[in-house]
């Protein structure tokens, strides 16, 4: 029994049941398959996390965001400027308590370099209803190449707890048809 010492002293020389051997082999091969699926997707899949990231001081990141807002704001929506940078350019999204700043307007089918960082606490960039979720750290600027393939209005919510106003932290990305 499992609560008593093994009945055979030399238990490690006991023959192993065939069913067990087969299952160990199947389970092992399945593990190998899942492992290589991840690697394969890096070559052939379209959705991979970028490996590009930089250390950045929060104020430096804020300056880059401000420069983009100053250059490319197309309209104001409540507290938020809506910024429409040219396709192919670097676009910035900044997390802070409690908003995603600023709002972006992107063109469908165009590619952008999206920079994400926070100027205070950790935040969770969660683009809905697509359900793209990326962790955002203060002091780290991550850069990814993103190509919106559907148009409309997309909400950004925060899904990393960031204090008592966490549930009020939102933002927005518009994707418009190519003009």
């Amino acid at each position, binding site marked *: 029994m499992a609560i008593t*010492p093994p009945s055979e002293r030399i238990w490690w020389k006991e023959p192993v*049941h065939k069913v067990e051997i087969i299952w160990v082999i199947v389970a092992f091969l399945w*593990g190998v398959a*899942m*492992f290589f699926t991840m690697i394969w997707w890096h070559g052939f899949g379209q959705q991979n996390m970028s490996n590009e990231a930089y250390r950045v001081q929060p104020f430096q990141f804020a300056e880059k965001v401000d420069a983009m807002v100053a250059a490319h704001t197309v309209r104001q929506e409540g507290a938020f400027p809506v910024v429409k940078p040219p396709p192919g350019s670097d676009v910035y999204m900044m997390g802070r308590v409690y*908003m995603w700043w600023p709002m972006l307007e992107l063109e469908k089918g165009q590619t952008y370099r999206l920079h994400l960082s926070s100027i205070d606490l950790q935040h969770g960039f969660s683009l809905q209803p697509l359900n*793209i979720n990326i962790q955002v750290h203060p002091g780290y600027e991550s850069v990814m190449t993103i190509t919106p393939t559907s148009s409309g209005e997309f909400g950004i919510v925060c899904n990393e707890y960031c204090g*008592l106003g*966490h*549930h009020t932290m939102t933002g927005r990305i518009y994707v418009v048809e190519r003009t």
Partner: protein
Amino acid sequence: MNTSSVFRTCPTTGLRVHDAAENLIKANAVVAVVFLLIGGLFGLSIALTRWPAVHLLPADWFYLALTAHGFDVLLVWIIFFEMAVLYFASAVLLNCRLAAPRWAWAQFGLMLVGAVMVNVAVLQGNSSVMFTSYPPLQASPWFYLGLILFAVGALIGCAVFFGTLVIAKDEKTYEGSVPLVTFGAITAAIIAVFTLASGAIILIPTWLWSVGIVSNIDPLMYKLVWWGMGHSSQQINVSAHVAVWYAIGAMVLGAKPISEKVSRTAFLLYILFLQLASAHHLLVEPGVSSSWKIFNTSYAMYLAVLGSMIHGLTVPGSIEAAQRAKGFNKGMFEWLRKAPWGNPAFAGMFLSLVMFGFLGGISGVVMGTEQINLIMHNTLYVPGHFHATVVAGTTLAFMAITYLLVPLIFRREVIFPKVAKLQPYVFAIGIAGISLFMMGAGTLGVPRRHWDITFADALTSFQFSPAAFLMLALNGLSAILAALGGAMYIVVVVGSVLFGRRIGDTEKVQLGPATGTQAAAAVASYGSAGTLRIPGTVVLVGVFFVSFVLYYFVNWKYLAELWPLK
């Protein structure tokens, strides 16, 4: 040798039980159950707040309750119970005295002080930083200090456990190798040492930061090391509850591992590979490379998952073999149909096994796939997954073995047997609902740790689909059911310990159907190569495997529908 040790011989198992070990098992189990009650109530209030139509707590209380819930059930209930399991698997199963009982009481005292300290800090309202306490978010120094004391206490408990193993070997209180259950407990304790060391490495500087001595804690570094504790401690739970599965199979049905070698190798895989799991929390993080993520998140090619998949065959397989040896040989599943489903220890154990595998295991591997994490990270899918592993898996298994500990260690008869009989089912259905509906809501994008998904107070709004609201309502209903199951457990266990009929010193306890442990002798001859048939288990494992593969690729399909991203 400590001559003051007092032993009694257990009339049911024939084991010699050291009174110090017995008292410590009792004390740790009692505190565990108290914190299960407290943490469970916090959990219920959280689920009722998430249910938009009820929205029970105000925001600050919600975040406070969430912090306390995570700490009280994930850490305090489980680690206290694990201390009881360690003392049971060493001193009791090895017929041995407990090493250094005074140190064991220090373990108990430190953990209790730490647990109370953290709870007080959280209830004061200035430490609502969640269980994970990610910097730069800062809690009161007492919060971190309480965690440190708790961890040091647990570390002492592990040392007492290892000391007891040494004494048992030295005094030759058992023959040959340690029992499989003890081997599983050793696995748990080794992982615990790694875990608690990671905790100390990160929590001590964080505590110094909270009192102003250290100026900065890097948030990414914190996460990497903290999860060396946070995730690896869940692997203590896995090892401990797998050991409990084997123990219950043995005690109730006289089940015997199909092969000691295979089951022990599976535990060994846990020791070697489970600790890489910190990566599961860093898959969508900046500053960590994809190759690092892939190697670590998969436990080096899923070798720890392999361990669990092996137990997934050997645990039900050993039960099938034991049942067939007793004559339940008709067809594929007579052994399962005629299993003691009315015995809460067995029912709880089997439900724990099935739910851990199907709900917790599959969702964990899928979510831990580097790219798929992108559509699940920090959504409600995450708590959906770990409620299936930690609550349906660990908590239910620990509840199940309590029904054996009460007569054997507390020496009281279980009161309200009809309530006890139903308890595992009520709890299991509730937890299955909680997991599935949270995973469902997460798939629809609902964030975890979020007070208001209607965004009523936000500057700009976003509308989740009505299905998400339905999921949260169903989650609330399931939580009520689970809380009912939890309350039934506490009433039965506390009632039995206080008011149950005392079991006499020479009275035997009936643990399983009719023959119970005695039948073990018959089953005990090795059923290895060729002689033993477990076709029912093969079918169950086949169903599991097909579900696993299908669900895995369905999620790649979902991922492929996202915007291209690189």
